[in-house]
């Protein structure tokens, strides 16, 4: 009798495994668990067996019954899942067909970069201010310790406007530092301001030069601001923009409107500092110029340098996405080519 039950179990499970749809499942149930099934018959006929055998066979048969029931439930669930998929396929949509396109618009990579930098400085308490692009010589040069015939003017070839504002020469600002005196005139300390936008140079355009590009400048003026504050602020920015592990260099440099002056560079991403064409074999990529606001500039902005101190920094924007994405031609930014812009 036990052998008969064992055989029944093997057969039932094998058949269940091979069932493909719900109707077959029902006939299987009728066949193995129904009222007329062999198992039911065996259970019913237990009474005719001797007591000892009745116990063992009865236990086994009941165990078999619940095991078959469990297997049946499992199989049903699996089949339902399969069926759902099958039904949808039969209903006739090819789910691999492309979705209905929605138009995708993106901000310009320069706008995206500026936003990213803004957010970092805003979190350090800086506020974004606006400043004119067409400027007086005074704000762009003279007031920043770059009088006429100063050699520093040679490195910022200027586009001049063919009009004078009340006799004063007008130019297209060559750097966003031109906003610094205006900010000092407008705001009261403590000042923590950034401004960004287009700057212009008399420079023929090629892969690395453009007569128009973007800069961002920062300015902080207060009592007791130190060079260490400048270094700390810039390192914090660089860590967040370039990543924790990027090596940084903070070295002495000269700009007429700051003293001491500094320049910050990051380790070249291509050669990691060993020197390559991108970094001009130096291993470093210059990112920004900075320094402590020159006392004469503070004075012109209306602050007593004996009481107040401040720092300023300025950086070019285009080179940041150029470095990050490996863009090799600055002109792409202003060419409006969708094949370029769609990549960002």
């Amino acid at each position, binding site marked *: 009798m036990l052998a008969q039950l064992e055989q029944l179990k093997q057969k039932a499970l094998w058949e269940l495994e091979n069932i493909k749809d719900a109707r077959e499942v029902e006939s299987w149930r009728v066949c193995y668990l129904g009222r007329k099934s062999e198992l039911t018959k065996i259970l019913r006929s237990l009474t005719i067996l001797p007591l000892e055998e009745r116990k063992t066979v009865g236990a086994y048969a009941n165990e078999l019954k619940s095991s078959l029931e469990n297997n049946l439930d499992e199989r049903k669930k699996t089949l339902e899942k399969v069926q759902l998929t099958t039904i949808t396929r039969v209903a006739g949509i090819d789910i691999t067909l492309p979705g209905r*396109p929605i138009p995708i618009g*993106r901000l310009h990579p320069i706008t995206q970069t500026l936003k990213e930098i803004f957010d970092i400085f805003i979190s350090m308490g800086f*506020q974004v201010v*606006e400043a004119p*692009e*067409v400027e007086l010589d005074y704000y762009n040069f003279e007031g920043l310790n770059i009088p006429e015939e100063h050699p520093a003017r040679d490195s910022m070839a200027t586009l001049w406007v063919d*009009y004078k504002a009340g006799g004063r020469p007008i130019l297209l600002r060559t750097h966003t530092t031109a906003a610094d005196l205006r900010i000092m005139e407008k705001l009261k300390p403590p000042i923590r301001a950034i401004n960004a936008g287009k700057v212009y140079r008399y420079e023929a355009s090629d892969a690395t030069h453009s007569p128009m590009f973007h800069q961002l400048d920062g300015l902080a003026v207060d009592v007791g601001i130190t060079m260490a504050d400048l270094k700390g602020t810039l390192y914090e920015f660089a860590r967040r923009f370039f990543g924790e592990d990027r090596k940084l260099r903070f*070295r002495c440099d000269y700009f007429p409107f700051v003293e001491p002056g500094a320049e910050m560079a990051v380790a070249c991403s291509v050669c990691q500092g060993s020197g390559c064409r991108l970094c001009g074999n130096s291993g470093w990529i210059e990112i920004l110029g900075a320094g402590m606001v020159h006392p004469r500039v503070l004075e012109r902005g209306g602050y007593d340098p004996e009481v107040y101190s401040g720092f300023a920094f300025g950086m070019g924007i285009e080179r940041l996405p150029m470095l990050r994405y490996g863009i090799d031609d600055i002109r792409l930014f202003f060419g409006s080519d969708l094949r370029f812009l769609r990549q960002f």
Partner: protein
Amino acid sequence: MRVSIKWLKEYVAINLPLSDLAHRLAMAGLEVKTIEDIGGWENVVIGQITRVDPHPNADRLHLVKVGLGKEQQTVVCGAPNLRVGDKVAFAYVGAELIDPQSGETIRLKSAKIRGVASSGMICSEKELGISESYEGIMVLPDEAPVGTSLDDYLGDTVFDLEVTPNRADCLSIIGVAREIAALTRQGIRLPQVSYEEVASTIEQQVAVTIDAPDLGPRYCASLIQGVKIAPSPRWMQQRLLACGMRPINNVVDVTNYVMLEYGQPLHAFDSPKIKGSQIIVRRAGSGEAIVSLDGVERMLASNMLVIADKERAVAIAGVMGGANSEVSQETTSVLLEAANFNPVSIHYTARSLLLPSEASMRFERGISPELTIPALRRATELIIKLAGGKAAKGIIDVYPGRKERSPILTSTEGINQFLGTGFSQDQIIGALTLLGFEVEVADSASEVRVTIPYWRGDIQQAVDLAEEVARIIGYDEIPQTLLSKSLPRQNPEPIAALKEKVGRSLTGFGFQEVITYSLVGLEALKRLSPDSHALKPLPLRLANPMTTEQEYLRPNLRANLLVALAGNRKHEEGSIRLFELGKVYLPRQNDLPEEREVVCGILSGPRFERSWQAQDESFDFFDVKGVVEGLLTKLDVEASLEEAQDESLHPTKQVAIVLAGSRVGVLGEVHPQVLKAFDITDDAAYLFEIDLTSLLPLTLGQKMFQPIPRFPATIRDIALVVGAEVTHQQVLDIIKGFPLVGKVSLFDVYTGEQIGGSKKSLAYRIAFQSLTYTLTDEEVDKVQEQILSKLAKEFGATLRA
């Protein structure tokens, strides 16, 4: 500034690897742009020709014995200039040399030349890569040490330094040596100058007067007679070449050499050519001209300084000498000038005459007047040494511009406070002392009185000293701190927030942002009007435009966007949606131009991307209108639209965007002729331009919450028939004027036979709604009747059957 390391080593010991030195210099403000090795020869040594025999089998060849110290080699050589006793460069087998014919690098092998074995070679300059000369072998100076490797003797390394405009003193070998000495904590060795003078004084032979002391504060001169002009020795030529200057002759080379060494430009005149033996430093006369050394006639202006004799200008001061007093092969007597000129005047002159020179570059950065005498004495000594001759007794020194510089009072505590550092007093004083500053501790403990050495004209106040301290101790020693004071009050500029919101909305609508040049050409602007008439008002023009395409400051954004559309249409067949957020520049009387923030968008092509399901439709007027309406909704402003006359747009398919009575922008279809002018021929294009500066104040209103209706709305559809001239807006205004009317939507517009040619049907769904109770049908019927009768009265509207 190119700096020869070998030359530097004459003044300062270099005990660290050159790459480390470059790093130290860069950290201290003198960036090394490139490090260039000169030479790098292997297996080439200095030899001496001990014997020259004819080759047994060839007329033109010789067998040459070369002494190399410990050994001797015999080689076959065909050079015409073989002389016993000459020092030469001898290459062993295995040396890498340049093949004079092909220019390629080859490795020297042993060879049999016409039957005679030759292992090694006597080199020409070209084979060593020194110059193009290969007609003869290179002959080295007599002092060249036999047996030494040529690399040790001739090889060098050159640093190309980026000298910042404040450091005129570092435009010299000695200046750079001073920096290295300070950074590596040592002193420097300056040349010890001495020469003999004859009895007669220079004053007996030449007179100098300065007529323009503001432009020429000091003029010094020496006189050397009996010189013989010849090429300068190889060592000097090599150094000049290494530093990027071309050797000319011994006298001129000395002036350049000493300029590179001390940083003081010098000029040598052929003394007899100075008429009247008189040097006058004066402003150029109006209309005065001079032929400069390069043979070009230069017109001078009255604010330029010249060096003149009794009759004419003989040099453009500090910029370039004159041809009329130039040192030539026949020169025997040299008047040597070392002067100081006003930096502003020199910069102006060099810039106006387009004549930047090594001399002007130094003067315009401001070198010390104290440099003249040491440089002049050094150059006089070298001329006598290299060209012979004797110096007249004394030096002429006219110095009307002498200025005393007083010491700077500062405090070590103040320096630390400013830098945010904790340097000790010893560290600070040590750093300054290493740079040649004299530091005297003043009355109070941290106060110091610092006397500035004459060569550091850039040091003028206490902050300058702080920088010196920081860069000598090292910027790496400055700690990093974050601003710790109270945060300033934030007053964000509302225009920035508006711009960001507009940008985000438009990208959400599928528009791609572009950034175009703010400078445009008049041609592109003219294309914006169908009849290309002149623009009014004329946009601001640049005084020095680079090209006619970038000559004007843009008065609108649309010209650039049309160019961008045309450019993209060449390779894009799908929909194009572009926008720019940027400034336009409008002229203002006697003031800077007004910079207004504007957004301009353009769309063109198919409405849907080509897809397996997409309908084949093109954008039309209502797409651009929808974009603007969507944008305004995002900005929570309600605008009305009015007729407009924008000549870039189609005369009947355009509207002005009006807010609170003022026009802030326009939208419509681009005029077909304008499109054609921009080379856009396939599709129509639709454009909007909104002045955000005008829009801004209207977006700042406070928004209030509207409760969500708690009672159901009653929906009614009505189809009206009105005259074709009646607009949707007119009908809408009337419907909306009634109470209980909520949302009104137009769901059908029909014109056609069914209703007669001059009529049209407008179908509206009106939601009647009360916030306080549920409307009854009777109430709604009443209002609807009122609406219909008003429409009938105003427009003769009837219900469509």
